[in-house]
């Protein structure tokens, strides 16, 4: 517990991080930077889980394990996404989403 720091501070910080990630997801045109925006979004959700767990249910550990599993899923997702990005780069020699516009040819 952190006296002097209300739960709302954590929630507002996490939502700021979430919507900065959304902004990046909408404006970026490079696949790797889009992936980085998604990582920001996932990370802000983890902060929420842990803050709720610590402040509202300190006797339980559900939020803790949820964020542990979110981190594991994020790692798997990043590995597969980067494999796809490298494959796209090999075929199109670019990873700009606007130049990758054919599925099959």
């Amino acid at each position, binding site marked *: 517990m952190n006296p002097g720091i209300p739960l709302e501070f954590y929630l507002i910080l996490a939502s700021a991080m979430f919507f900065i*990630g959304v902004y990046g997801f909408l404006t970026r045109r490079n696949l790797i930077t889009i992936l980085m925006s998604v990582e920001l979004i996932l*990370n802000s959700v983890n902060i929420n889980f842990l803050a709720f767990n610590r402040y509202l249910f300190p006797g339980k*550990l559900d939020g803790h394990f949820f964020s542990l599993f979110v981190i594991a899923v994020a790692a798997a997702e990043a590995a597969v996404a980067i494999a796809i990005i490298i494959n796209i780069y090999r075929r199109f020699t670019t990873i700009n989403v606007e130049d990758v516009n054919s599925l099959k040819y």
Partner: protein
Amino acid sequence: MEGKQIMFAIFAIVIVVFSIFTVTSRKILRAAVSLLMVLIATAGLYFMLNYQFLAAVQLTLYAGGIVVLIIFSILLTSQLDHKFEVVELKKTIFSALAALAGFIVVVTTILEHSFEADTAAATEVNMEVIGKSLLNTGSDGYVLPFEVISVLLVAAMIGAIVIAKKGSPVKEEKSNK
């Protein structure tokens, strides 16, 4: 008490400033390094919340693993001195408006509710508790998601290898036209 507030302010400023750098920087490697700073500051927040195990996982898996993976793929796919073109003004304005509208809705919803912190004694999160919970089938057990995650990790590993390995030479030639 005062010290904790100062630490929280520092972490919050680092997170917000470097998140904005991550999504606006025109050099891709700088964006990746800003992402690293954000993830480290997040680990600091976890330490402040007294979840030492998860902070260590955050540092090793996110800051050590995913960022290195991203930097490797940047080095494989981009020219380092390449700068992204400036985003069109119209797109910037509309994206910023969408993000800002969402942020305002979420923050007003948060502030409408009053959260009363539970003052019950916190369970200590040490390795014994974590290990017993992860492999427990009872009401506080997480053995099912634990096993599902292990299957997911194997599937992701095999999938990444199959996707990223070189195809047959005929396909490679076709793709060059």
